[in-house]
């Protein structure tokens, strides 16, 4: 697997159709998920900073639990779900493209 053994130069690999597809897909999904995570967390902080009454509402009549509690726990859970989405994408697309490109270089 050393680069010295490969037939193609780095430049040729970069020009390869599959590599370009892998490159753009990986960048898009990383960027989208990063932005989602930023929006999620800083959205939560913004709610605390600018709309405390919203977070202080009760979940239902007679319940002590405020909306803020599931929102905070939801931020934690959703962050983890985002990592699961990335894993799912990487296992089903990324790894397969990497394998394909490596086979091509080896051949």
């Amino acid at each position, binding site marked *: 697997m050393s680069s010295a053994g490969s037939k193609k130069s780095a430049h040729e*690999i970069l020009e390869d159709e599959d590599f370009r597809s*892998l490159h753009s897909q990986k960048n898009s999904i990383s960027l989208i998920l990063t932005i989602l995570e930023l929006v999620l967390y800083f959205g939560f902080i913004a709610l*605390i900073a600018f709309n405390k009454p919203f977070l*202080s509402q009760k979940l239902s009549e007679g319940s002590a639990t405020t909306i803020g509690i599931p929102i905070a726990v939801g931020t934690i859970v959703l*962050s983890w779900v985002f990592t699961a989405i*990335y894993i799912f994408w*990487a296992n089903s697309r990324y790894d397969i493209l990497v394998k394909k490109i*490596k086979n091509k270089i080896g051949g």
Partner: protein
Amino acid sequence: MPQAAQTMIGQANPVAIMFFVLFVLITLVITYWAAKRTRTTKDFYAAGRSITGFQNGLALAGDYMSAASFLGIAGIVSTKGYDGLIYSVGWLVGWPIIMFLISEPLRNLGKYTFADVVAYRLNQRPIRAAAAAGSLTVVLTYLVAQMVGAGTLIKLMFGLPFELAIGITGSLMILYVLFGGMIATTWVQIIKAALLLGGATLLVILTLSQFGFSYGELFGQAEKMYTNKFLEPGGLVTNPVDAFSLGLALMFGTAGLPHILMRFYTVPDAKAARKSVFYATGFIGYFYILTVTIGFGAAVLVTQKVILGVDKGGNMAGPLLAEALGGNIFLGFLSAVAFATILAVVSGLTLAGASAFSHDLFVGVIRKGQASEKEEVKVAKVATVGLGITAILLGILFKGQNVAFLVGLTFAIAASANFPALLMSIVWKKFTTAGAVSSIYTGLTVAVVLLILSPTIWVDIAHKSEVDAVAKQVKTIEDSSKAKIADIEKQKAPGLDAAKLAAIDTSVAAEKKASEAQIKEAKSHMPKAIFPLRNPGIYSMSAAFLIGILVSLLAPDREAEARFEGEKVREYIGIGAEE
């Protein structure tokens, strides 16, 4: 309802000591086993890259879940309610960022430290010197914070003298790292993480059993005892810019912690690296949800009065709850777990510091990359002992000091000195050596200087006596005014006519107004911070990015640009990655 008015906390607890000795024995056996397998630099720094994604996920969680977060967050929740929950969310959100931006490129491009990645296509020596400065500052500040916390907590839990607690912690940490390297450190982390997660889960089950396993019931009782304010956001976020700045530092600081980044080299490939973040995020998120539950449970079952009576910082909320629900045995177990937690975290930090010293400074800078593996491991071991002793001495030196700011500083520096350079070296073709070096030093300097000038240090620590003097003066004015008002109101006798009553009310109002003016005057002498924010992250991080970009654009480096193609291939498909 159990009431832990009489607590065993703070006394030598035979159960706790037994559990702790057991933990130490097991980990020393592991260290002995690991020592026989630690020959090469790959073994010492990276556990031979033999750790699986799941194991590394647990170890990452072990590195990150400190005793301060376990005891501290439960404490904040029990005393401040919802605000503690806000705090815990901030500690988790950096992990997805690590996965999306850092984990795979880091594993594919580097060997042992994150400086390997930054220096990949740039000039080794200046980059490694700068990255080592960033790493070592982060490691040392975090280590001191953990050590002082360790001494204080162990003293609280076991009744051991502060110096002895630090001495035991430091010596064990040196033993693990010195002989067992990354293999021993990783297994110490894994065992500790499993114990901590298991212990916290058990505590939560016991807690919820008191409420018919209903969170609604728990919150209902919490509301009855402490009003609905307890379940609403309170005073934690008063300045939105400061909150945003803290959020940035927590989020991107996590992605710049050398002992966390180093763990990605212990797995065989990028796929395992990515997997380990998924597990780590799950474990850490679960842990914070447990910790928050423990905090609310302690507030209801132990009561704030008892918690604050044992420790003003609220740190004993978790142990007190364990004692109330599971008696002395559970208290002993949990105290031993907390001790083990401290030990594991400081070991991980020491190893990260030792590798920055030997791999980056000694081999990269002093020897210009020319050193045998044997030599490198030897220097890393010497550095381990040196760092360990430094940590013990600094811990004792800072005894009784308020070191909470050090944790904030650690994350601010990691987010400003380490993260921007690392990210730009991965994604930006035009990034240059000068750009990287100036970015690291800028982030480091700006973060440290702004924190010194901030209210956290400038007012709370450097001008503490003046703050106290003003507070004392205000208190005197208030007391004398209260006494005066009481005197005036004594004249109110039954049967006084309306005019006289009105006159008394007027003079009370006048007295109130006069004292308010005096208080305002006194408060105007309160020392002011030169930099207004408590968290410098927003400025120090922006400065590091900005300087890195400007310097790179002003003096382009065509050679480094040309080498980006090779870096990109290796970064994305892992060809040539260290095995």
